């Protein structure tokens, strides 16, 4: 009986011991003692080989004003967010340097935006991505963006729509001319593209807005591996969104065809890859749906719709083909043609090594089909 009791007590002790040791509860910190880092910026430092990491976080003033008021006061006047910087050869060194400037734990568990300077060297970008992948508290869901401007001008600025700048970039990819696209890239997606052969990274780029306005996210930056290649204009950004099948609320205007205007242009894309000898034929099939918003005639006819469908299809096709030819010149496989080839024919893909020498010679065929929803249709 005593033996049984001892066994039970031993089992209970082991259970408690394992519970405590496996949970890692000894380094738990209450929310109050943490600094919630919402955005991080990665820039090359002045000293060659070093990087500077900026951490943007809300201040107590910002926290209390964001939800009405706190309980025990602590509000008052002051900025709603602040930034800390640290410099080092590695991310860990930079982090430690920044941590030394505050008595609270810099907590990365709620980071929602990571911005990478376009001036970062490829090996620095590579180093940072590897380090970010290894940070346990940082999950893989923050949005990733490219910047050419200083951190203080793109993330460290007061927003009109959000209390904290990082929240502004949480969901949106805004574009003054091309409205919104689903072009946001998360960390896991960026890591995936960088690690996968046959596809290159595309990041939305944040640029400082005009005076008195917040920053803008209205074009994208192309990468070749870890190398920054170029930043696309509005028109090319729109073309990319259509080519990638990510168009959601684009608009089209045809002044020579009854001043027809389409909005809510959305599409899906299918990529067909056909290796042929030393080159590869790629067919990009796009199916568009667009809503006829206005027409200079009061009512549309079947003929008008047929013409508009044909015209818009041809226009979109030309635009996308031009865009793809540009990416070939930049040697940035943004659609992932090589990846598609590796999926359907890994042996053939291996023959085309290195892919970046083949991609500029790929033969693109763009097929478009447009369906017009007449004005007044419910969607």
């Amino acid at each position, binding site marked *: 009986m005593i033996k049984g009791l001892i066994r039970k007590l031993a089992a209970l002790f082991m259970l408690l011991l394992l519970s405590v040791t496996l*949970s890692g509860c000894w380094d738990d910190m209450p929310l109050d003692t943490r600094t919630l880092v919402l955005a991080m910026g990665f820039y090359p430092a002045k000293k060659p080989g070093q990087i500077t990491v900026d951490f943007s976080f809300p201040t107590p003033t910002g926290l209390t004003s964001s*939800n009405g008021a706190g*309980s025990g*006061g602590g509000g008052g006047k002051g900025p709603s967010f602040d930034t800390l910087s640290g410099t080092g050869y590695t991310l860990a060194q930079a982090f430690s340097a920044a941590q030394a400037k505050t008595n609270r734990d810099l907590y990365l568990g*709620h980071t929602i935006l990571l911005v990478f300077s376009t001036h970062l060297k490829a090996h620095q970008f590579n180093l940072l991505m590897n380090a970010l992948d290894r940070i346990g508290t940082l999950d893989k869901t923050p949005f990733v963006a490219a910047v050419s401007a200083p951190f203080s001008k793109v993330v460290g600025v007061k927003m009109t729509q959000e209390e904290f700048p990082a929240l502004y970039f949480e969901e949106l990819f805004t574009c003054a001319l091309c409205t919104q696209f689903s072009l946001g890239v998360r960390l896991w997606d960026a890591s995936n593209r960088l690690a996968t052969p046959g596809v290159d990274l595309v990041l939305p780029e944040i640029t400082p807005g005009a005076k008195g306005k917040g920053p803008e996210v209205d074009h994208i930056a192309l990468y070749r591996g870890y190398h920054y290649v170029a930043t696309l204009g509005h028109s090319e950004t729109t073309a990319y969104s259509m080519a990638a099948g990510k168009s959601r609320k684009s608009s089209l205007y045809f002044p020579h065809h009854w001043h027809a205007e389409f909005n809510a242009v959305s599409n899906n894309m299918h990529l067909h890859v056909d290796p042929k000898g030393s080159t590869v034929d790629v067919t990009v099939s796009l199916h568009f749906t667009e809503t006829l918003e206005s027409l200079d005639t009061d009512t549309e006819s079947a003929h008008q719709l047929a013409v508009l469908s044909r015209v818009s299809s041809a226009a979109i096709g030309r635009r996308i083909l031009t865009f793809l030819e540009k990416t070939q010149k930049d040697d940035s496989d943004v659609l992932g043609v090589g990846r598609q080839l590796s999926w359907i024919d890994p042996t053939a893909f291996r023959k085309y090594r290195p892919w970046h020498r083949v991609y500029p010679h790929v033969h693109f065929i763009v097929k478009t089909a447009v369906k017009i929803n007449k004005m007044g249709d419910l969607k």
Partner: protein
Amino acid sequence: MWPFSRRRNQSTKQKPSEGESLSKAMAEAAALSQNVNTADAAIQYTSGTDLTLLKDIITETSTLEERLSAFTTDLAGSGSLDSFSGNVASAYERLKNTVGQSPDIIIRRFFIGTTVRIPAVLAFVDGLTDSQIIDQDTIMVSQEYDRAYAISQDPKRAHQIVHDSVVASGHLTVEASWQKLLVKLMGGNTILFIEGTENVLVVDTVKYPARSISTPTAERTVLGSQEAFNEVILTQMNLIRMRMKTPDLHFDNISLGRLSHTNVAIAHIEGLTNPAIVSAAKQKLAVADLAEVQSGQELVPYLTDRANTLFPLIRRSERPDVVARELSMGKIAILVDNTPFVMLMPNTLMDFYQTIEDYTMNSWYGTLERLIRFLGLFLGLLLPPLYIALTSVNPDLLPTKMVLTIAGSRVGLPLPPIFEVLTMWAIIEVLREAALRLPKELSNTLGTVGAIVVGTAIVKAGIVSPLMIVIITLTALGLFTSPSYEMAAPWRVLFWLLIIVSYFLGLYGIILALLLILGHLASLEVFGVPYLSPFGPYHGRDMRDTLVRFPEPMMTKRPTYLQSLKPKKAGHYDATPDESPSIYQIAQERTHD
């Protein structure tokens, strides 16, 4: 002076002054009194304490002497100390010197008959009896009986004649054992001794002081019956019988408590309830060696094997309609005198979340109500632990905007989340306890004052966050959504456990604690019925009356786990040996019995 001595003096004053035995007794009393006075004079010079003690000893001794004298008479007449000898005078003395010293015991001597007068003694407990039956239906008709000559001719049959031709009460029994007679006397019966016969008539004159049938307070309903049990077991039986007119409804009576002799009845429906459950309950109660039974709760440890568990294994209900419904399902009910709550068993966890309200409305409403109850339970049990875990240990699991909101509400607070919760919960418990003890009118005021003043002031004082007020309010409300009061208690205890583990181990700890609770629940059994039925072991058919309530026509069978002799609610059913060997065997045994 002890009360015993005072009563002794009172009873001496009430002694009748006629009759031969009476004169003899008077002479004895006078002699005894003289002895007492002599002894008293002799001990005048002893200390005060000793004097009191000695007086009591003398009184006790004289009482004992008279008692022994009565015992001797019975022993000489019937050959047994426990049997009445037929001598009314000795019965009178014996009663007077035992139970008769209590002022609520009335002992009355009278004669049966007008021409021939047969001595008789009658005893009853004042207040527990119906005086009309005693005065008119027993004493008056006996005194006016004009054929007492027949009794004098055949004294041995006197009780039979009085039983058949004299006493006009509905319920009469015959008893000869003093031990049983005294218990019956204390239970409100009137015992009638007749000169010459060794049999004593026991007239059922029981009329307990009782509350009227009031509306239920612990199990209220809108559309259901508005009757609740009171403390009298007979009324409880009546209320059940009103709803179950089947002759198969049986009440098996047991008397428990060496001192209290409390009536306990096991109600079941013969031919429907699994007899194994009935006999198990009887066996368990039979071994309950208790001095007194003042509440049904005292029997619970004897009825269950896991009396030390936090969770209630026996459901108690004050509603006759609930008891009737559960009996019809195949359960048993235990009625305890002086307890207005009837115990039902065997139960599962789900039984504690069912109310009669679920069945008085349509199934959609019943289902919604049940789901809300469980939602309330989970909110009440888990909200504060989750708050602590997510703010102290696992903040990365919260959406960013919510983290910012929580962090904003906690700016400047001096206490960590766990102390915030403990402070608020302590306030809630104190308010609850205070409201429970106060009169109803005051408790309402206290609740309002507590909720508004304390809640607002504590936030203004910067001790807790406004969010905590919301969480604790939901917790307090959620934990009391359980329709069964006894089921709210274990969750309130386990709440503390969850608070502690959530602080140290976060979500991992909460899940661990919930698994432990689930494991414990799975290990519980009541009369062999798993507590988590029908979820574990799984009985798909029984799920129709658990989290959701199906319409009544779709619930055609009784719960499987009760192993009822009639699994179908309607229609004829005979257990076959192939279908259920155990039930078939039990049914066969019952038939042969």
